[in-house]
């Protein structure tokens, strides 16, 4: 009998075990989808909303309200000064307009909040114009809301990347530690099954999982939010495959010594935290200062997210992503080799 049969059998058993756990199926497929839908709705509706601001109660407040009354892009609320300021501090309003004695206005806003900054300038603009300011020239506003450049488009590849990371690490690490606790690893060690073959099947099971996982997410994003899929399916699958390989390796390494579920959970969270923060899931990793970039760029999730965005949103070829793919493969190989060396069976 060749060594393929037992490996296939192991993968089949792992798959059956997984599909018989409704909770596991939900966390793998349902949860990421809910996240895409939730975040997608939250961030795609904000572009259509109007500028909200408060006006401090007083004789001149009427004038401000009248000035924006016919402009659907603005919504003014008249409030006493302390109420308005409290609303500003809690970001329920973006700007507070306080009419001053001389007929001018005072704006209170939060300079660290880009939305507040923009609202301040927009309110100032509309009030200046209603007071009679003439534009020096006519300007035209061209809105770019084409699929591919919105926040939800940025978000979806990041969430797929995050899911590949979480799935790879938990799917491999957790399963192995659980098997170690149950003494199943030791039991398998006592069979003629070869050790590297066993570890490969655990990773292999993961690779079988991620394909429906990633495409389910991508397809949902395409159908619900019209997130464009510009690259070839093959290129997307290849990038996701290499990413999955890399994180399975990391999961294997994390699980190589751990004897308890608490230990593996801790190790995984420590390993994943920097990537959740810095690897460009929810915002671009380029926002971090330059001195951090070498480290951030070396993280596998940064490379996976970059490559996924390139192939999904920009339609880049697989060849153009050789560097990120190379970095991901290097992670996979190093992790697998170290895990094999350090792995504790008993």
């Amino acid at each position: 009998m060749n060594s393929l049969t037992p490996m296939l059998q192991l993968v089949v058993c792992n798959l059956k075990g997984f599909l018989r756990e409704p909770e596991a199926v939900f966390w793998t497929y349902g949860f990421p989808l809910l996240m895409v839908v939730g975040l997608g709705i939250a961030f795609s509706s904000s572009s259509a909303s109007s500028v909200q601001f408060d006006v401090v109660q007083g004789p001149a407040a009427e004038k401000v309200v009248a000035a924006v009354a016919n402009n659907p892009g603005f919504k003014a609320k008249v409030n006493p000064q302390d109420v308005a300021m409290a609303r500003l501090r809690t970001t329920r309003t973006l700007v507070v307009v306080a009419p001053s004695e001389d007929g001018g206005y005072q704006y209170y806003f939060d300079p660290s909040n880009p939305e507040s900054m923009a609202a301040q300038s927009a309110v100032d603009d509309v009030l200046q114009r209603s007071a009679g300011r003439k534009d020096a020239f006519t300007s035209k506003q061209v809105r770019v809301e084409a699929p591919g450049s919105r926040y939800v488009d940025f978000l979806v590849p990041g969430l797929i990347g995050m899911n590949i990371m979480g799935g790879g690490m938990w799917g491999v690490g957790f399963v192995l530690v659980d098997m170690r606790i149950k003494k199943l690893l030791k039991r398998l060690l006592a069979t003629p099954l070869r050790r590297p073959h066993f570890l490969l099947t655990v990773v292999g099971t993961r690779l079988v999982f991620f394909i429906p996982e990633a495409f389910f997410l991508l397809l949902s994003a395409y159908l619900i939010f019209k997130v464009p899929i510009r690259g070839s399916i093959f290129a997307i699958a290849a990038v996701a495959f290499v990413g999955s390989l890399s994180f399975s390796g990391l999961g294997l390494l994390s699980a190589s010594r751990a004897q308890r579920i608490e230990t593996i959970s801790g190790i995984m969270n420590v390993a994943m935290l920097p990537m959740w923060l810095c690897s460009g899931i929810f915002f671009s990793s380029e926002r971090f200062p330059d001195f951090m970039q070498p480290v951030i760029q070396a993280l596998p999730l940064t490379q996976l997210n970059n490559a996924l965005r390139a192939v999904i949103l920009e339609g880049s070829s697989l060849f153009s992503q050789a560097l990120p793919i190379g970095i991901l493969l290097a992670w996979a190989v190093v992790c697998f080799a170290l895990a094999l060396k350090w792995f504790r069976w008993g």
Partner: protein
Amino acid sequence: MDNAIACRELYKRYEDGKKAVDALNGLNLTVRIGECFGLLGPNGAGKTTTVEILEGLIPPSSGEVEVLGVRWGTGQDQELRQRIGITLQETRFQEKLKVWEILQLFRSFYTRGLTVEQAIATVALEEKANSWVRDLSGGQRQRLAVATALVGEPDLLFLDEPTTGLDPQARRRLWDVIRDLRERGRTVLITTHYMDEAEKLCDRVAIVDHGKVIAEGSPNQLISQLGGEHVIEFSLEKTDGHAVQLSEFRELPPVIHAVQEAEGFLLTVAQPHIAIPAVLEFLDGRQARLNSLTTRHVNLEDVFVSLTGRYLRDE
């Protein structure tokens, strides 16, 4: 080659930080082909360490091991694993796999062996073939574990405490399975801390204590080494407990061996019909009143007690 297992001068030291525990202290063991051999000893005696070394799962600190004529780590491990089957003291298979699925998986590891159906029939689990592991009782799980050890039709079978924690009925069903294997000429090494199990199942036993074999032979040989085949157990009224000394019983001619235990005294004798009157007469002379008295056949537990002064089940 007549020996299935031969090991000489096995030492195993577990180092855990500053503490070091010597699990094995020069253990020697020979198991012949075709016999059912029992490693009998209290918990912590080194039984599991011994079998795990024999199974090639852990290396000894020093000593020589030969299993089916092969030494572990000489490039033939994979071939050797094809020829042995094991059950660990505890294995929990995936809860949501079915009995036949687990056996099919284990069958796939071996180049030859039983069919899944045969393996299930061997351990009498036919009714549960389609059940998830989750829905098996303790005894059924243990029989499944034995089936995974059998499915590759091994020349040598290791069963580590197969009946620990099972109810009497489940134990007897597993004994039937093991007896059946023995009748078919399999070599079986079984560890247990139940003396009745060793007595009923094993051709030969080795009694292990503190990492060493302290006695070896067939159950009957070991029992006859005590010189007598009967045990008189008796206890005295509490107030009279100090009236007699243990050493005084040893001097009574029909008594071969005497042990004091918490509840009373244990005397090994050859002929109870002579010994009992002698003991009663002696007690009468000391005005010590009996609280209870029973007699029974000598068992391996008595052998262990006479060798160590302790009980198997005390540990």
